[in-house]
């Protein structure tokens, strides 16, 4: 029997939601400070209004719903889902006020794409957008990649036992330390150390490319935030093509790979246990799938003869592929070129790479390497079960931080999430086709949205139907949170309407 949620449930959800909204509002001080420094008055006002609104909502919720109770699993999942929705609506406000987004829906699309580290964009005239708004676009990816709630956990919470539930709700299953708040702080420590190094590296590359120092470092900062968080936004409309630089491409490739690696492995690298990288199933699977997808892309491109010399072929193919596989979405080609210069075989390689994704507990999206690796192990186990004598006892295991034996519960969960991803890829493609787009284009964009990649073959455009914009928003949201908390929210809403007291 479905029970109607009690007032206490709403209060506790409202209280924690209010806390996270307060944290989100405070993050707007960064663009405000930049606006003040650069004297961008109107953009500054856009953020000031949103900050005030966020703090007002946050204060009202925390005061009205004040509670000292702890979150249970259902409440935590609902808090996570609602946080992402609230972040989308609030984060979109300064964007919409700038006048660079045609409608509030477009601004919401951009914000969800930012927080979910997708990278699909509906901005108009990006090349004339203020620094203040551009910083916010990239900052959203930096926050969303780590997890909006991780931001709150790391900086705004002193400690509460519901933290673990919220942490899991944001699609983070693994902890580096027993305490999730320590884990969240470590994730931020890693990110900030890399942020400094990456910004300096990219900034210097920008200066070498002929950019002015201030602009070079601003671009370096923005590009780092979106490359490490496998997002894909860039400050200029041409994406990475704007820089016309092999060095820039090389650096972003390194940062994208770093972003797609499990934070636990970063911890092992930092503590000197580098061999762990080679032993882990995720890195092994990632290496294998990159090689296989790269071969598919190369064969496709060689047969098509779109890029004649080998080096050029390698540069274009490898960059697009790594960008797709890590879920970043940077492009060194124009969206239209996917259809014109890449044949179906090469495109299939990109589609597979996008659908598979990076590591679990990283900033990458999609099915993820540990699931792909363990599905192969499950398959192996099933084959062994058929081949070996009935009485034979065997266990399939793999190494992921520690030795893990494949149990039925684990296999079920892995296959369930994988199936959900595949289902969402297909569902988005069907909606795209029903709106008149070709099959391959619809599938490409649908995978890109659900897997939080951000590569586009041209469907994502300000003129695309609103229904498709809403579909992609839902796909980005559900894909980023790995479905469970979104389904819990749906269940909660059904219980509100149909539940019995």
């Amino acid at each position, binding site marked *: 029997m479905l029970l109607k949620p009690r007032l206490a449930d709403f209060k506790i959800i409202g209280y924690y939601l209010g806390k996270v909204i307060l944290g989100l509002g405070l993050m707007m001080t960064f663009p405000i400070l930049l606006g003040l420094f650069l004297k*961008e*008055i*109107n*953009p500054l*006002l*856009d953020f*000031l*209004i949103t900050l*005030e*609104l966020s*703090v*007002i909502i946050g*204060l*009202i919720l925390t*005061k009205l719903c004040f509670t000292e109770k702890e979150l249970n699993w259902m409440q935590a999942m609902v808090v996570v889902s609602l946080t992402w929705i609230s972040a989308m609506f609030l984060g979109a406000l300064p964007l919409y*006020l700038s006048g660079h987004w045609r409608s509030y829906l477009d601004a919401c699309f951009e914000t969800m794409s930012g927080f979910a580290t997708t990278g699909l964009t509906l901005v108009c005239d990006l*090349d*004339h*957008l*203020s*620094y203040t708004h551009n910083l916010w676009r990239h900052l959203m990816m930096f926050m969303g990649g780590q997890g909006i709630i991780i931001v709150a956990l790391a900086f705004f919470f002193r400690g509460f036992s519901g933290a673990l539930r919220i942490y899991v709700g944001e699609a983070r299953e693994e902890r580096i330390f027993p305490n999730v708040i320590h884990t969240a702080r470590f994730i931020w420590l890693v990110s900030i150390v890399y942020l400094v190094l990456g910004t300096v590296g990219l900034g210097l590359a920008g200066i070498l*490319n*002929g*950019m*002015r120092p201030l*602009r070079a470092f601003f671009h370096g900062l923005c590009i780092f935030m979106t490359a490490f968080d496998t997002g894909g936004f860039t400050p*200029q*409309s*041409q994406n990475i*093509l*704007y*820089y*016309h630089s*092999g060095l820039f*491409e090389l650096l972003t490739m390194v940062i994208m790979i770093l972003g797609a690696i499990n934070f636990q492995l970063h911890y092992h690298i930092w503590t000197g246990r580098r061999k762990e990288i080679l032993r882990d199933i995720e890195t092994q699977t990632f290496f294998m799938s990159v090689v296989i997808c790269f071969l598919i892309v190369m064969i496709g491109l060689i047969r098509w003869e*779109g*890029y*004649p*010399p080998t*080096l*050029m*072929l390698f*540069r*274009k193919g490898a960059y697009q592929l790594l960008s797709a596989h890590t879920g970043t979405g940077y492009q*060194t*080609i*124009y969206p*239209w*070129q996917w259809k*014109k*210069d890449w044949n179906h075989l090469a495109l299939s390689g990109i589609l597979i790479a996008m659908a598979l994704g990076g590591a679990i507990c990283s900033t990458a999206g999609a099915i993820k390497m540990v699931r792909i690796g363990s599905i192969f192990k499950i398959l192996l186990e099933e084959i062994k079960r058929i081949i070996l004598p009935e009485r034979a006892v065997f266990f399939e295991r793999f190494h992921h931080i520690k030795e893990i034996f494949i149990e039925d519960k684990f296999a079920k969960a892995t296959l369930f999430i994988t199936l959900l991803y595949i289902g969402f890829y297909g569902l988005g493609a069907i909606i795209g086709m029903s709106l008149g787009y070709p099959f391959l284009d619809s599938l490409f964009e649908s995978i890109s949205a659900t897997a939080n990649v951000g590569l586009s073959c041209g469907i994502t455009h300000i003129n695309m139907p609103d229904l498709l914009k809403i579909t992609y928003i839902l796909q980005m949201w559900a894909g980023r949170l790995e479905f469970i908390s979104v389904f819990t929210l749906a269940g909660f809403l059904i219980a509100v309407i149909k539940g019995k007291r």
Partner: protein
Amino acid sequence: MITTLIHIILMIVLFSFSGFAQSVSSEQLIKEAQQYDKKTILYQGEVIGDIMLRKDHAWINLHDGGFAIGVWVDRDLITQINYTGGYKYKGDWIEVKGIFNRACLEHGGDMDIHAQQLKKIKSGELVKEKTDVYKEELALMGAGLLCLILILTRSKRQLRQS
């Protein structure tokens, strides 16, 4: 009848002889890249972002309202450019004549134009930012409301303590 026919033939002949000497849009270049590949074209657009100097050449990016395309230009030619487009500036509107590359052999397969001639069509300018009064009022109202909530919660706390 004959005059009309002559006109049509003349137009066709003139059009075919002009080749790609007429200005092409970025959308045409990207969507019909095979057709324009390695041909001399005329392309117009606003200079956006940075002028990236590379030894005796420079990269500029020209946006014609559709897309932006990179132009590889001789360093001497860029002296005419005074403004590049951004939030505070409207960039110079430039016309370039050059060779269009669908996948440039010299530049890692990027789609670009190697400029031979460059002409400034319209000078850019500083965009004067006018403060939006509506936004100013909204921000003030928000600040007022926020102060009110803070005072109320503080006085409520004090009341409870007393």
